[in-house]
């Protein structure tokens, strides 16, 4: 980000400098770097290789999608980045730190497959939860929660309980909760997987605008090709048994600003085709 930016990105740059006083000017442009990363689960009959020799570099400000059929290790890879799983071999660094150090410094926000809201807390108090844990004062907690809820379009729902919201709204609350931490890195595990397609389109549009406005680095797990191509600057195609990376596709033929109609463009179709070919190649291994 060196050249002048359109409005949304300028705001993001400013807020990033504001929220990161200790960031050195020469901060590396690499956020996540994995080398020969493997994870083997010991099971009763034979060990299962969830990840096999994965190499991956994620640059600052990128929107990277991990796509593949179930069992390809895409969720496992995300959980390794988040230090929710430990790799059995290989090396992984988050902002030059181990995943554990990164987790302890609360460098990332995580959005799960399910909204995972605490049912006994109101929407606002759910968003305030990470801030409470960080020991932030009440007034600022509330201000930040309101700001994030407004960002995901849920102003006026602060005092509702999760069960009073639709599935899509609940997932937006969980995104607001992840954003409330003001992380530079946003990890999302099929956040829209359980939603209907209309809601999903809507939230995808919302997410890509949010990403452009905040300039965060996003890692997004999905099994929808259209969703991956629409959102991503880079797509990582994965394949199961053992979980590994087949292809990494740059989406630089698509503009950084995504509108729903780019899905009809030939560039979009070309990338989607390449993803589909990659997934097909992975499948021929099993059959």
């Amino acid at each position: 980000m060196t050249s002048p930016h359109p409005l949304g990105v300028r705001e993001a740059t400013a807020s990033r400098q504001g929220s990161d006083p200790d960031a050195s000017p020469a901060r590396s442009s690499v956020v996540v770097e994995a080398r020969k990363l493997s994870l083997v689960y010991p099971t009763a009959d034979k060990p299962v290789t969830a990840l096999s020799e994965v190499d991956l570099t994620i640059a600052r400000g990128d929107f990277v999608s991990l796509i593949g059929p179930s069992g390809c290790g895409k969720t496992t890879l995300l959980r390794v980045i988040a230090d929710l799983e430990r790799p059995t071999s290989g090396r992984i660094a988050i902002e030059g730190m181990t995943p554990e150090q990164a987790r302890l410094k609360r460098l990332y926000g995580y959005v799960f497959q399910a909204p995972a809201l605490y049912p006994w807390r109101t929407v606002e108090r759910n968003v305030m939860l990470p801030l409470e844990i960080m020991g932030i004062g009440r007034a600022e907690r509330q201000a930040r929660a309101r700001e994030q809820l407004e960002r995901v379009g849920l102003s006026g729902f602060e005092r509702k309980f999760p069960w009073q919201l639709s599935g899509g709204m609940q997932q937006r609350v969980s995104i607001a909760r992840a954003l409330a931490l003001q992380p530079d890195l946003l990890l999302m595990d099929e956040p829209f997987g359980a939603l209907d397609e209309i809601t999903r389109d809507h939230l995808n549009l919302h997410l890509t605008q949010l990403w452009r406005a905040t300039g965060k680095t996003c890692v997004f797990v999905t099994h929808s090709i259209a969703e991956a191509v629409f959102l991503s600057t880079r797509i990582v195609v994965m394949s199961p048994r053992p979980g590994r990376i087949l292809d990494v596709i740059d989406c630089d033929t698509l503009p950084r600003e995504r509108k729903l109609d780019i899905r009809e463009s030939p560039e979009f179709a070309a990338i989607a085709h390449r993803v589909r070919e990659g997934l097909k190649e992975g499948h021929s291994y099993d059959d």
Partner: protein
Amino acid sequence: MIKRALPVTVMTLLLLAAWYAGAAWLNWPQAAETLVRANKPAGFGDVLAQAYAMKRPILPTPDQVVVELWTSLSGYAPTSPRNLLFHAWVTAEAALTGLAMGLVLGILLAAGIVYTRTLEASLLPWVIASQTIPILAIAPMIVVILGNIGLTGLLPKAVICMYLCFFPITVGMVKGLRSADPLWLDLMRTYSASGMRAFWSLRLPASMPFLFASLKVSVAISVVGAIVGELPTGGQAGLGARLLSGSYYGQTVQIWAALIMASLLSVALIAVVRGLELVLLGRAGAR
């Protein structure tokens, strides 16, 4: 409303009819004998009237019990030992103190069992074994031992209540503290929350519905525990003492009035617990 009231009314009338029939049947021989001895006419109606009007019947009629309750409640100051409210309060005091002690003990045991594997293996069998000892056998022992070290009055009774109360609370809380969804726990990990924090902000609130289910059982058996505790002390106050003195002097009407008072006390305490549950958890929705 009428639909709900009707079955209850019918059932109550049936019970009252059975009660009156039982009173006539059980008191008949005595009533007939009294009339014959007094050289009074002993027709069916005469004996029935006598059976329903005896001073020390085998089974008093509901109206006798209600009159006894009413004269006790309205005829004396609530601080007088002739008022059943006074005795109910003495019993409630012990029951509630014991419940509070059982609550603390039960939650501590449950937390220990949930957090430490060795405690689960070593403690749980003893917790279960403790409930196989009949309370009637152990209650006098508790009173004697505590009396010997100078503890009399409320405390021995409360200890007996605690002994009965902690078990449902431990069992409920072990289940409750383990009821947190794995995603909710993962979320705490992504915030690098401490174990204490996860306990206060996640495990404990998640266990509340289980706690209230246990509390409703515990509060009722706590009243039983307090009454049992009042029997061996030969105490001057409390519903148990009232039952005991009633049985010394063959005052069956007094016994039945105390029994009704005890069940009213249990019902009232359960209603309080239910009210607390509604206030504390009601708005968080039907979980």
